[in-house]
């Protein structure tokens, strides 16, 4: 518990620093060993606001999970990738499904395979239970911290799981320790006196279900808004390779007009990037953007498409 409340600001995420074109980062798919293999990654183009940057730094400093909310496609998940790259840390991803259980994030125990091996009398002398235990994303992050290396953990779409799922993780997230029941010495924990090894945890939430208060109280909360200014959108498009300035301006005009309409699902940043990327790839002249070509990439409901076309037909 002391580690959690010990403030540590030695790691600082700078969202506006120039990122190197590639980085050698520990491979999160490999086993947790003292000298893990590295892999080369390219940068994650991401434009964070000042508020988001300070929320990330607050979460790192206080050792609490960062809970991100916002419209779909606004860049909640990508932030974890950008933070991991900027800090040069491996990123573990825990995609949550409706059947996810809290223990799956720590480890899974393959009872049936062990039974089979026992039935077939295979490796009679090799009674190592470890072979049937696979660490989950949170378990790997804690095990890696034991080895003295930090990681970023992304718990994606936590609201997809059962109502009690976040509660099952409260203790493990609080103490950053867990025990594998099937092993006699199965305890893993982040060293208590090393706040600089605490994993950086990013949780995304689409608000499909209300999360338990006890879990929410432990998080740093940030709501990501759709980028407010033209300059922000312009920079985001540039970062994602939309090179022609006239096309960018035309696309931003269009998205501004669309977001003013009363649509069931307003196009988000991710749809905008898909659409603008395709327009650029097929070489659409900027003056044609006003006719809303390929609306399928932006508007995902029939009613919305109809409404947008009707509205754009009027001057």
């Amino acid at each position, binding site marked *: 518990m002391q580690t959690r*409340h010990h*403030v*540590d*600001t*030695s790691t*600082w995420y*700078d969202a506006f620093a120039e990122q190197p074109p590639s980085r050698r980062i520990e491979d999160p798919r490999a086993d947790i060993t003292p000298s893990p293999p590295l892999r080369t990654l390219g940068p994650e183009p991401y434009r964070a606001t000042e*508020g988001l940057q*300070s*929320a990330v*730094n*607050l979460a790192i*400093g*206080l050792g609490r999970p960062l*809970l991100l*909310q916002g419209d779909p496609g606004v860049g909640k998940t990508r932030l974890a990738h950008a933070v991991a790259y900027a800090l040069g840390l491996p990123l573990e991803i825990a995609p949550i499904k409706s059947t996810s259980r809290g223990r799956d994030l720590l480890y899974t125990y393959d*009872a*049936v395979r062990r*039974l*089979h091996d026992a*039935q*077939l009398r295979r490796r009679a002398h090799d009674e190592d239970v470890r072979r049937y235990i696979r660490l989950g994303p949170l378990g790997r992050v804690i095990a890696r911290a034991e080895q003295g290396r930090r990681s970023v953990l992304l718990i994606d779409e936590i609201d997809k799981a059962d*109502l009690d799922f976040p509660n099952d993780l409260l203790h493990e997230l609080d103490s950053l320790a867990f025990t594998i029941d099937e092993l006699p010495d199965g305890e893993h924990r982040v060293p208590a006196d090393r706040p600089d090894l605490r994993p950086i945890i990013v949780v995304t939430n689409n*608000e*499909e*279900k*209300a*999360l*338990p*208060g006890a879990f*929410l*109280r432990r*998080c*740093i*909360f*940030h*709501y990501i808004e759709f980028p407010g200014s033209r300059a922000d959108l312009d920079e985001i498009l540039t970062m994602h390779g939309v090179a022609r300035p006239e096309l960018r301006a035309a696309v931003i005009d269009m998205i501004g007009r669309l977001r003013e309409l009363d649509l069931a699902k307003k196009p988000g940043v991710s749809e905008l990037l898909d659409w603008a990327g395709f327009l650029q790839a097929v070489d659409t002249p900027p003056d044609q953007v006003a006719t809303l070509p390929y609306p399928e990439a932006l508007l995902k409901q029939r009613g919305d498409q109809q409404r947008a076309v009707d509205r754009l037909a009027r001057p």
Partner: protein
Amino acid sequence: MTGTPAFVYDLVERLRRRGLPIGVDDCATLRSALGAGFGLGSSNDLRDLCVALWATSVAEQEMIAAAFASEAPDWHAAPAAPAAETPPTPEEEARTPADPIPAAVPPLPSSPPPPPPSVRAYTAVTGQPPATGEWDPALVLAPQHPLTAREIAQAWRRLRRPVRHGPPSELDVGATIDRYARSGVASGPVLLPPRRNTARLLLLVDRQGSMTPYHAFTDHLLREIRNAARLEAIRVAYFRNLPGRAEDALADRPDPFSPEIDAVLSRIRPLTGGRFYADPALTEPLTAVLDRTSPGTAAAIISDAGATRGTFQAGRLTSTIALVKALLTAGCTVAWLNPAPPERWPGTTAAQIARHVPMFPLTAEGMYRAVDVLRGRPRDTERPA
């Protein structure tokens, strides 16, 4: 607890009154974050820090921002040296509590004297009319209902009738090991069909008239039940006051001044047909709500049963019993949720209906007990319908 600006306590006080349970721990976290150099730049920085630490939803974010707008003075400490370069040394950290941050607040910069007011006579309509509808940041506009989404979800997800159904896909570890232990022969894993919730819910919602004040609340309730309860089927039917009448049973009531109808209770016939609507505005009629309800459906009636107006109507009582009888005949379990507080029930139709139908106030505890009844737990009423 030193080290925290004094106005923060007024702020916490205000937020706690609004139902945001900020405790000592949260204040301690704020203090250590301030000590580490977060949120010192301006009052907006401090607001964003409090939002990040204390808020858990957009509604709470707005609540905190509103409290700041009305509570917090203009605050700016000298920006601390970027904490990244100089993490505080232990001595510095130890000193922070003794060196309260308000001391670091510099005197407000003397603003230039305000320009003398100038009066301009309006001679004709020359410009834009003065703008109205300015947004006041001190107002909380996010709705705050008496029941949170989570309370509703927790109560209604207990309405479960799990049945294993469909192709086998789930591994039964216990049965697999058990089979091997019995036979001693290597065999494949035992699979089970996954569990499914087969509970069905029929919600009958009173609308308009005396229910008007509860519209927003019941809409919130229905939305959250739809969101959270993973049921096989949820049907909502709206009606106004009563879906149908059954007054003939009252023709020869023994004592016309007694509200009790025990003598004629057995003579009330189940309601047939009835007028229900598919939409809350009561415009699209819904046919065959009562006839086409499958046995075992949980039927919840949401209505104030006359408690809001505080009147007793014998006709409403018998007609309601007719509706409940129709639901019971169809094999439903019936519970009544009354949004009016129980203190208002005595002396009204609601009190009499509650003698025959399990009726609960629309609170977290009331919903729990209603779901118990809907799950099939017998509930003592004075004279079951």
